[in-house]
């Protein structure tokens, strides 16, 4: 009997109202994260990674609505929690690093004060104690000269420094779950490695679970045990990292890997994934949203709805949303 996961998302569907009709941004998204585990969500731009994070955190754009599904965090159904319960948990129990760090920071408060605010709200730290802790946090995310940088305003910091301030803010209250939306896109590889090591270390020492949203498959490969691949609002594949890289099952995952730069590959060798995401407002969206871009598609793929195929494996189960999955070596 294994413990229930810390976070379990089940059949989550989200729709946005727009002038041109409803956008079906997420459909039956499911995945789970255990205590201390780091998983990655990867997928093309617009595939619904950030919307998934926003839905979990209860911070969807007002035009967005959760149509169906469950989000369980430590046994509590977040979709049924009251606004005040959620507000209290955000930052303390689960924290988020936003994709657009400069926009997510308050432009008219110094970064030291912003970290102190969070510490005051959730940890009841004040004055010099809060300032010391804030400085420690900045040092932890490798900001040089942290004492003097406490007084800096966001506009005085570089893009990657703002990103690291966001990380410091998110980690300040020792959350049990961290949702990090592209946390290291603006960081050089040495700083990125330091940040990922820090996140990994917090997973081991405090059991913090992390959902890493990223475009960087190389980063995901190195730091995440499990990878969730999203496409056009669907989870198309969910598998242990090693298996996913060795033998992708979903044709989309395979194409994503083929587009990834690697040592020895030239620009000509890299192939963009043909076509684009389908228009998510269409009323006749097929059950397989990859259908029109897939070179393996056939008649059975046109079914109006698909169910994920689940196969057990020693490192945890694999799921793939495809009627004609690739069957590589690692069965």
């Amino acid at each position: 009997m294994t413990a229930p996961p810390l976070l379990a998302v089940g059949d989550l569907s989200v729709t946005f109202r727009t002038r041109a009709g409803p956008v079906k941004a997420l459909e039956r998204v499911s995945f789970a994260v255990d205590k201390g585990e780091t998983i990655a969500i990867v997928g093309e731009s617009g595939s619904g990674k950030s919307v998934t994070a926003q839905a979990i955190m209860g911070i969807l754009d007002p035009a967005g609505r959760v149509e169906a599904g469950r989000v369980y965090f430590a046994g509590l159904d977040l979709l049924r929690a009251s606004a005040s319960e959620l507000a209290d948990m955000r930052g303390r129990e689960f924290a988020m690093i936003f994709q657009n760090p400069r926009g997510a920071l308050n432009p008219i408060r110094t970064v030291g004060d912003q970290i102190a605010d969070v510490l005051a709200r959730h940890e009841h730290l004040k004055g010099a104690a809060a300032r010391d802790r804030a400085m420690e946090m900045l040092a932890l995310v490798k900001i040089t000269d942290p004492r003097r940088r406490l007084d800096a305003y966001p506009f005085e910091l570089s893009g990657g420094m703002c990103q690291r301030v966001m990380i410091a803010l998110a980690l300040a209250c020792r959350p049990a779950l961290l949702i990090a939306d592209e946390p290291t896109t603006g960081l050089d590889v040495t700083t990125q490695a330091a940040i990922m090591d820090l996140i990994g270390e917090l997973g081991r020492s405090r059991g913090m679970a992390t959902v890493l949203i990223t475009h960087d498959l190389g980063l995901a490969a190195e730091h995440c045990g499990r990878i969730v691949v999203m496409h056009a609002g669907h989870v198309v594949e969910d598998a242990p990292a090693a298996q996913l890289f060795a033998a992708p099952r979903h044709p989309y995952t395979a194409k994503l890997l083929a587009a990834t730069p690697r040592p020895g590959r030239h620009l000509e060798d890299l192939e963009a994934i043909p076509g684009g995401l389908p228009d998510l407002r269409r009323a006749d969206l097929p059950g397989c949203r990859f259908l029109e871009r897939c070179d393996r598609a056939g008649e059975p793929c046109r079914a109006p709805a698909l169910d994920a195929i689940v196969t057990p494996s020693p490192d945890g189960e694999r799921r793939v949303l495809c009627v004609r999955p690739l069957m590589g070596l690692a069965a």
Partner: protein
Amino acid sequence: MTALLDVAGLCRRFTVGQPGPIERLRGKRPGVLHAVDAVDLRIGEGEVLGLVGESGCGKSTLARVVARLIDPSEGSIRFAGEDIGQIAARRFARHPLRRSIQMVFQDPTESLNPRWTAFDCIADPIRRMDPGAAAKVADRVHELAALVSLPETLLQRFPHQLSGGQKARVGIARAVALRPRLLVLDEPTSALDVSVQVVVLKLLDELKRRLGMSYLFVTHDLEVVRLICDRVAVMYLGRMAEVGTVGQIFERPSHPYTRALLSAVPSGVPGRTPQRIQLSGDPRSPIDPDPRICRFLGRCPNGTERCGTEMPQLRPMGEGHVAACHLADAA
């Protein structure tokens, strides 16, 4: 290759930590942050220069000075033979050379007007700088959208209704609208997924070949550098650490910082962590740095006494390959 851009002795300093009136009475002085310090740089016609370095080392600042959005504190900037470093940024906005240097910003959310549709964002430079083309604006915008593979259905959306990668493509379409001779790109691909990244890199490669455009390409992704750049400049804390061709930098890095950086590139293989060169020790502050001390001292694995008394200058390591390290050996 004649130099399109020739930058010499470029410095950009910021005053930080302005003391309040009482602090001033107590003798507190503001600090001076040396974001860019005595940088020389040349970019040839049709050449792509990659600019890499640790987060906060001054890449964006250098890019903004070169793109003439902010003023240098010292030094000269020659563009197509004309000294544009002396023209105040505000005046340069109306200078005939303005359309020849365009910039793609690090943060697509910051650089797009939230009240404009994607269409208007792309049309704006054409309307402002190219009145002759005003009648054909719609055609041009659609052409540009196709060029960066931005679906036409997205053109009527506002920035907040677009995903991060979609916004990045709007930013690129907007910057190439006027066919500049020099495009300054500040992490143009960091918000892009691998598939769009391939499209954008191939597009930039083609624009370079077809129109002879030159790029200053700021990025953290060393794989991207390998794919698109001719030469690479490595910065460390405001100063140039090493400059050379892609082959020289990747195969025979001379500066210890360059070596550490290259060693931290994720392997892209699950479970295989690269043998990173760990940089321990505290980084030096860019605020009021000692002009005699090498900026890397303290973190450098092989610093000597001389590194603390004499700032290393760029020295030839090979044909067109220079490094600023007392201990580096010419190949």
